[in-house]
């Protein structure tokens, strides 16, 4: 597989994982999102996650309800506490606030590579937006920029977010997705991980 194809595949994976974090709706389920995720897990040989995914409710309405509640609990508002708001600034040391200078830095990075937030888009350090940006960089062959972005704007906070999702997720779906984001964004080691 050529590098261009690999880059496109990685871009698609980023987008797909970002899309997985959008608020669930019937169309999203009907389009086969879980099937695609299962295929990705199979390709990766992550059998345990595949089995966990199969443990989700089969009935679409029940599954959708469960995912909506879990998404709200993890990322929006929850009692007793929201598990992991998907915004970078919240997870930085001394953070705890939305839309900080770190958010502005992230947005500036987008601009350096010719991208701007679309109308109605969420804050710049919203995780799915960062994944989309990584996808765009990959499609443009900007591998160095991708690494720089990951180092400067992504990895400094993602570890904290990941830890909170690992500890707080009740359904496997979002934990699997966030683990996959980690897998596809962490610094590559000698063995390729």
């Amino acid at each position: 597989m050529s590098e261009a194809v690999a880059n496109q595949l990685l871009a698609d994976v980023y987008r797909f994982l970002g899309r997985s974090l959008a608020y669930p709706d019937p169309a999203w389920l009907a389009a086969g999102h879980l099937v695609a995720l299962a295929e990705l897990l199979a390709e990766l040989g992550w059998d345990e996650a595949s089995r966990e995914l199969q443990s989700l409710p089969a009935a679409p309405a029940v599954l959708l309800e469960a995912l909506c509640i879990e998404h709200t609990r993890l990322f929006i508002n929850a009692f007793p506490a929201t598990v992991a708001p998907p915004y970078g600034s919240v997870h930085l040391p001394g953070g705890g606030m939305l839309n900080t200078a770190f958010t502005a830095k992230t947005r500036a990075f987008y601009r350096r590579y010719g991208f701007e937030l679309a109308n109605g888009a969420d804050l710049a350090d919203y995780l799915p937006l960062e994944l989309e940006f990584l996808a765009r960089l990959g499609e443009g062959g900007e591998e160095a920029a991708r690494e720089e972005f990951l180092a400067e704007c992504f990895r400094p906070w993602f570890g904290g977010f990941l830890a909170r999702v690992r500890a707080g997720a009740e359904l496997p779906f979002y934990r699997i997705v966030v683990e996959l984001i980690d897998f596809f964004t962490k610094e590559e080691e000698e063995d390729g991980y």
Partner: protein
Amino acid sequence: MGIKISRRKFLQTASLAAAALPLSRLARAAEPGLVKKPVAAPGSFTGTETRYGGMCEMCFWRCQLTGKVRDGRLVKLEGNPKSLENGSSICARGNAGIQLLYDPDRLKYPLKNVGERGAPKWKRISWAEALDEAAERLKVIQKKHGPHSVALFPHGASAFYPLQYFEFTGTPNISEASFYQCRGVRDMAYMSTFGFAPNEDVDMANAKVIFLVGTHLGENVHVSHLKQYLKGLENGAKLVVLDPRFSAAASKADIWVPIKPGTDTAFLQAVMKRLLDTGKYDQEFVAKSCTGFDQFKEAMAHATPEWAAKTCDVPKAQLLQVADLLGANLPNVAVHPGRHTTWYGNDFQRSRAQACLTALLGAYAVPGGLIRPKGVKLGAASWGHGVFAQDCDLSKFWPFHPPGTPTDAIRETTLTAKPYPIKAWIAWGQNPIQTIPDQARTIAALKKVDFVMVTDIMPMDITMYADILLPEKTYLERYDYVKTGMQWDPAAKPQQFVAARMPLVEPLFEGRDSVWIVNELAKRLGHGDKIPVASIEEHVDKRLAPAGLSIAKLKALEGIFTQDGVSPYAPAGKREFEFDTESGKVELFSEQIDSNDFAGSPAYVPTAEVPAGYARLVYGRSPVHSFSRTQNNIWLHHEMPENPLWINDRVAAKAGLKDGDRITMVNQDGVKSRNSTVLKVTPGIRPDTVYLAHGYGSMNPELTVGKDQGIDDQSLITLFGIDRETGATGMRTSFVKVVKDGRTLEMMV
């Protein structure tokens, strides 16, 4: 993690092409969050823009603001230099508004509780789903039990429109904490005396004496008000403070009277008797502008200095010193009307006494006195008055009640269904769990009703009990309030202003303004054809229209319109005024009050004595918090993370307590504080009294900063008084003991 392949290998695997297809198709169908734009060179700097038209809502004073906005992000708030009130100054809370805007805990989308009230399990739903469900449930309740079966607890600038709407639908069961647990008593007392509500319009800046009854300015911070207070002190005004605690104001006082709680009216009566006895009152003003003097004088006759000194536990000489100081400086005496005045359930009479003292000193429309600022005439857009069913008025037992219905009457009716059922509670910007005493009964009522809807910006104690929870835009993201008034120093060149709240930044998430929410609800409840304004912008424009203004014009004026004004002082020598009372005069004795079987002149009604071994719990303001609304604000939390319990040093010593000890509390009914706090051991509080700043210790763990921080004073107030004239809630009537290391300690000297 059990992934058995490296990322590199995964991407290189040819077989993936097949697997990639559905994934890629789904990925590429996603709505883009980023769009292509010309490349911005590294180091490109987006300048800071100043936006005008902000109006603070961190408290109710509503200072005018500018916002420094960089690339759409609010980075700093400042006072609007054009403001005639706060100028370029704002307080700590005003500065910290940014943190509210960007608080990760804020309510972001409409939520439905699919769990239990009190232990909610939230599910994000669309606005259409939320409004459909709310309307359907309200419709069922209104149809079965009548429109008065819906109760509303509104607060803040955005609540004006829902308040109007629900009243229009036919429910009188609307209770504002700002009236029934705050200033309603004062307003009704002054209306019965002077014919108008006083606000805090007393000219401290130009007074010779400032007289504060419990008001603790400095801890109670409102910028232009403090400017007036401090200018008065700078100019040499004498300061007299009645307070059982050595408050920030007491620390600046010429005379601090550490009065026994609940006896202020007796003190005021004795002061007025002294003025009458010595002839040191404004005889011309009383003769020309007051009525009921003889009955008033007779009603004060018993209030000897000896009686008051004993009743109030203050030295007689100090009482006389205060009276003589006031008399010697009349009419330029600022008798502050106070704001939070619901203390003991006998408060109407105390506020009446403050109003009568003001009149006796002739301290009206003169420098230093009670004044009536004249702003610019504004327009209105209203739902119109509702038609209430016969016999549904729960407020009829309190003939001098403020607008709406006494809160406790609504709660008891909810719990007993007598005289009729109340089946829905709606809270709009109010947190009734921290505003109303006896939280267990409030929670029982919340659990009893068929439907609870809450609209707010942040998670609060009350939001835990919502079935449907709606997010509002913050005050930095919306239009709403229109304010008019005059320059902060009444003696300066007369000017008037008009300012309207305008958004400083684009709204985050899916918050909506109250006009939009109510209109959508009204359409679903069959009132679509009665909607008075289509949008909040239209509402603001209608308010501005009589002044020849509009949102667009105000924007062009950097948020504030000013023009020459009118002095609040009467022409020199004028001592005859007409007031909007029944008699047209200041009513030192009120026939109307008397005919309702209450004391027609201010009467002292004792409050319950402190039981042996207990201390009276009183509460007040912190300069860095606004009620329970700022508990989660991390900047303000940093300044005062918890509310130390003030305790007298001799009481502490006898109980073996030290400054800084961590303690909990228990009240006379055995109710324990949920959290702990630290002790502030000081000689600056009476031995029979302990003090907490209000607005701490939320029970809602969704407040990641504020949860479990400090003690919620309201959680310990289970014994409370209902003011007989107004139905307002007296809340300094509970008694507590300190608990340390599991031992409950006697509060004794």
